């Protein structure tokens, strides 16, 4: 079911979901800052958002309703159907870890701020619609 209200909110909703997914990726990088051979991962936000918007319907997952059902494995290669990329290491360490704490923390703060911006955009959209409805 698609309505005008859904359409009006779809872009910011997708942007917010993608921001949340990216925040999770960056949190994984920061949590694994001391794990040997861990490779830092991120998404290309602009192309991922384009990809998400191009998909008309969200990708359907498999529901597990009985204990014998198998869950789809978390392969870590896609986020909302968009490819996850490895970060290019600036200063690789001897243990094979490519997490650069400065980069990750900066990206984390940046992403958090943009998430808040998206939240604000959605709120303003809703206010605008309410104003149109109530006059």
């Amino acid at each position, binding site marked *: 079911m698609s309505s005008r209200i859904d359409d009006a909110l779809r872009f910011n909703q997708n942007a*917010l*979901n993608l921001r*949340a*997914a990216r*925040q*999770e*990726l*960056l*949190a*994984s990088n*920061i*949590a*694994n*800052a*001391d*794990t*040997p051979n*861990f490779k830092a*991962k991120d998404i290309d936000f602009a192309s991922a958002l384009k990809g998400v918007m191009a998909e008309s319907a969200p990708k359907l*997952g498999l529901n597990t309703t009985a204990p014998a059902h198998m869950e789809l494995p*978390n392969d*870590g*290669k*896609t*986020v*909302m159907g968009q490819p*996850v990329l490895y970060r290019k290491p600036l200063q690789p360490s001897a243990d094979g870890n490519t997490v650069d*704490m400065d980069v990750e*923390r900066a990206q*984390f*703060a940046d992403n*958090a701020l943009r*998430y*808040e911006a998206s*939240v604000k955009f*959605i*709120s303003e959209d*809703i206010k605008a619609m309410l104003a149109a409805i109530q006059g």
Partner: protein
Amino acid sequence: MSLFNIFNISGSGMTAQAQRLNAVASNLANVDSATGPDGKPYRAKQVVFEATPMGAQAGVGVKVAAVVEDSSPLKMQYDPNNPMANAQGYVAMPNVNPVDEMVNMISASRSYQNNVEVLNTSKSLLVKTLSIGQ
């Protein structure tokens, strides 16, 4: 939802770093323990971290895969009056390197703080999300 999974991810990171700090504490406390419950000198313990998938998407947490004993040679100290001394008058002392342990401690506490910050940021984002449309 991904933001809730950050609690699990950062939580796993904090648990792992706390375990590392625990190993450091036990190593530093036993820097002079020439004998342990098995009668042998204490050996430095190190934790091994491993990335572990968490949640339905690309989230990756941390877990402690193993606690390994440092295999580097024990320090031989000349102390003929010690009851643990061997025929040549040397006592085998633990292979704990206090400098390594201090570096490990600082690194672990900084990583722990990083995870706490991540958790706090995610929490405030979730609270802001709850106020959409108000």
